[in-house]
């Protein structure tokens, strides 16, 4: 039983650091644009932004191989971009258009890509956890060494079905990595107001599941922990829990006045712990990239995001016949 907070950081080449920088920046700029389009009324309903948490998915995706699966809850835009889904298709789904991943029928919380092994995008808090274990079950049944990254938040961690799943995942040695993205607030309720458990990952110990706490603002620390978890699962040792300590800068959803935390708390995190800034500094200090190089990357990312936004506005609304399709296969 691992019982520690990992302090290891993965070594990364300049090329890898640059790619993490690029991937995290893409998520941030994409989400900022989504927030903007929401403000313009182009995106409706609920829209949960991933800004601040970018290092979690980027660090873990760096440990995945072809065939590995991922599934998450409703704060899912970052996960989709990190596993290589097309920003145009994601943004067009947010605007409810034909060019969206679900042809406009799923929206922000319900998107999928069979090609990229992204199994959603689920709107019911905690429900994706047994689904993730089921995906892992399918790989074990088929006899391959794929793993499933099952992401959920500190809020979902209090749902009963999570523990039903822990029990069966360990009982059957399922190759599933439970990634608790602890951003400290379940909507407006802080972790301390929801549980007296000192840590969430340690709850796995009741089922014999190994795990650890990870600094989720440090992409290399996330990657190091991810490598360990993946190796554990691929070796047939069963599930692994990563409690990744992270922070969301924006509200729970677009309509969150965020009165449950102070502006200073958010600012402090942003100015002192920001994951993208940390990589940026490492790149500059290590002389892996110049300010101009990074500006060039910023420009490229902005262009990708603008292209996605344009596509999401130009793509037509779904044909009215679409109301009646995809109900049965």
């Amino acid at each position, binding site marked *: 039983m691992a019982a520690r907070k990992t302090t290891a950081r993965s070594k990364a080449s300049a090329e890898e650091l640059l790619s993490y920088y690029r991937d995290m920046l893409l998520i941030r700029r994409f989400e900022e644009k989504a927030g903007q389009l*929401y403000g313009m*009324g*182009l995106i409706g309903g609920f829209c949960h932004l991933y800004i601040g948490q970018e290092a979690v998915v980027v660090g873990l995706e760096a440990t995945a191989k072809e065939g590995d699966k991922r599934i998450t809850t409703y704060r899912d835009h970052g996960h989709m971009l990190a596993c290589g889904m097309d920003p145009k298709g994601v943004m067009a789904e947010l605007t409810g258009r034909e060019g969206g991943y*679900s042809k406009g029928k799923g929206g922000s919380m319900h998107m999928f890509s069979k090609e990229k092994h992204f199994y959603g995008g689920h709107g019911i808090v905690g*429900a994706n956890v*047994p689904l993730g274990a*089921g995906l892992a079950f399918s790989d074990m049944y088929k006899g391959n060494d794929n793993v499933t990254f099952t992401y959920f938040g500190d809020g979902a961690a209090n749902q009963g*079905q999570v523990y039903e799943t822990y029990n069966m995942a360990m009982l059957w040695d399922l190759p599933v990595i439970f990634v608790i993205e602890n951003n400290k607030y379940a909507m407006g309720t802080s972790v301390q107001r929801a549980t007296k458990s000192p840590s969430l990952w340690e709850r796995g110990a009741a089922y014999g599941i190994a795990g650890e706490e990870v600094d989720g603002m440090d992409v290399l620390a996330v990657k190091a922990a991810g490598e360990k978890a993946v190796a554990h699962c691929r070796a047939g040792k069963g599930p692994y829990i990563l409690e990744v300590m992270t922070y969301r800068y924006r509200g729970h959803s677009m309509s969150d006045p965020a009165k449950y935390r102070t502006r200073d708390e958010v600012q402090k995190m942003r100015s002192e712990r920001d994951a993208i800034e940390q990589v940026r500094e490492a790149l500059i200090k290590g002389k892996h990239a110049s300010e101009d190089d990074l500006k060039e990357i910023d420009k490229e990312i902005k262009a990708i995001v603008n292209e996605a936004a344009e596509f999401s506005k130009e793509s037509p609304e779904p044909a009215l016949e679409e109301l009646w399709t*995809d109900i049965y296969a």
Partner: protein
Amino acid sequence: MATEVLMPALSPTMEEGTLAKWLVKEGDSVASGDILAEIETDKATMEFEAVDEGVMGKILVEAGTEGVKVNTPIAIMVAEGEDVPDEAPKAETAPAPAALGSEEGKTAAPANAAPAPAAPKPDTTPDWPEGTEMRSQTVREALRDAMAEEMRRADEVFVMGEEVAEYQGAYKITQGLLDEFGARRVIDTPITEHGFAGIGVGAAFGGLRPIVEFMTFNFAMQAIDQIINSAAKTLYMSGGQMGCPIVFRGPNGAAARVAAQHSQCYASWYAHIPGLKVAMPYSAADAKGLLKTAIRDPNPVIFLENEILYGRSFEVPVLDDYTVPFGKAKTWREGTDLTIVSFGIGMTYALEAAERLAGDGIEAEGIDLRTIRPMDTDAILASVMKTNRLITVEEGFPQGSVGNYITSVVMEQAFDYLDAPVINLAGKDVPMPYAANLEKLALVTTDEVVEAAHKVTYR
């Protein structure tokens, strides 16, 4: 480059708001993420952040202004060192949203909206060739054989649930499967319906074909979110990318003397859900043929069995492989005086009543729906157009029952053919009591069917 800052929508329903307070003044430098203003919506006061960096060029809407419409320009941002242009630049504005369901929208209408001018022609082809050798088999054995045959056919089919393996099934439906297929494919779960239903759905997303047994459908209430929100809706929510080929099966409805929490029929609950298919067999031959169809179906199927029927024997065709299609009712008995529609154990009362009515000279047509969704409404309509009278029989509660739905279909599509009001017979509108005499009163009975038949035939 100067850009307009527009009044943002800060909630799914916001149309206008109050610009409560500016937190920057003209000439201030602004970084991405800085709060520009506080905006009051009908629900809360929200902070409005800058998206891009720049300088606050000009404030167009003063603090304290109420009723500012979403997308109204409220300020102009300029780049460092740039002057505010005289002509306000055009910011990107949202196109007017298309009105939902207006204009040419109504193309595909629900299946039952159009009036049927002529009698529909239901599929009455035999389920297996005439002259097929038959043998007697219980519903229990038929269900077991259906699973075994499908598991032999395809490796991705497996069965999981409480006591399905070593115990050989709480009701012995999975008897012998562990011996033949091993623990990889016949999986005992802990008592944890919510969790294993979700694992089953995930396994189906992952390309397997799970058969999830609930010891009874009463326990599936713990798992109903996974059945409906995860299994039934994902194909639609994924724009057709990701289906869920899974069978949830187990006994449903009242058994005997097990009282309220263990005696409920869920047919109308699941039949309510687009994306699910719902089968509820009566005979052993249908149990086998329908279960094989369910396992091969690419959609989530709710397969409702009945504990009292498990031990009952019926004639089953002796064939290596046969299936019964969904959406095809079976006419057990032809008649001209009234139509009795039922399904599952309800057929017992329907057919017993029909025999007794024949003694009184009333010939009832007995239709077994076999699947509630899809429902063979053609068979019902064709029969009602012949007999002009209809009774429905089921064990579920009366309000929002399957019979209620059938009645609405008949009202819409065959109103002029009805010679009497339709009668929906159902379980009584009470939780199932334990006491033997009260339990008997709560259930639908053959006597009630006979009485209703006299009522609709006025004789």
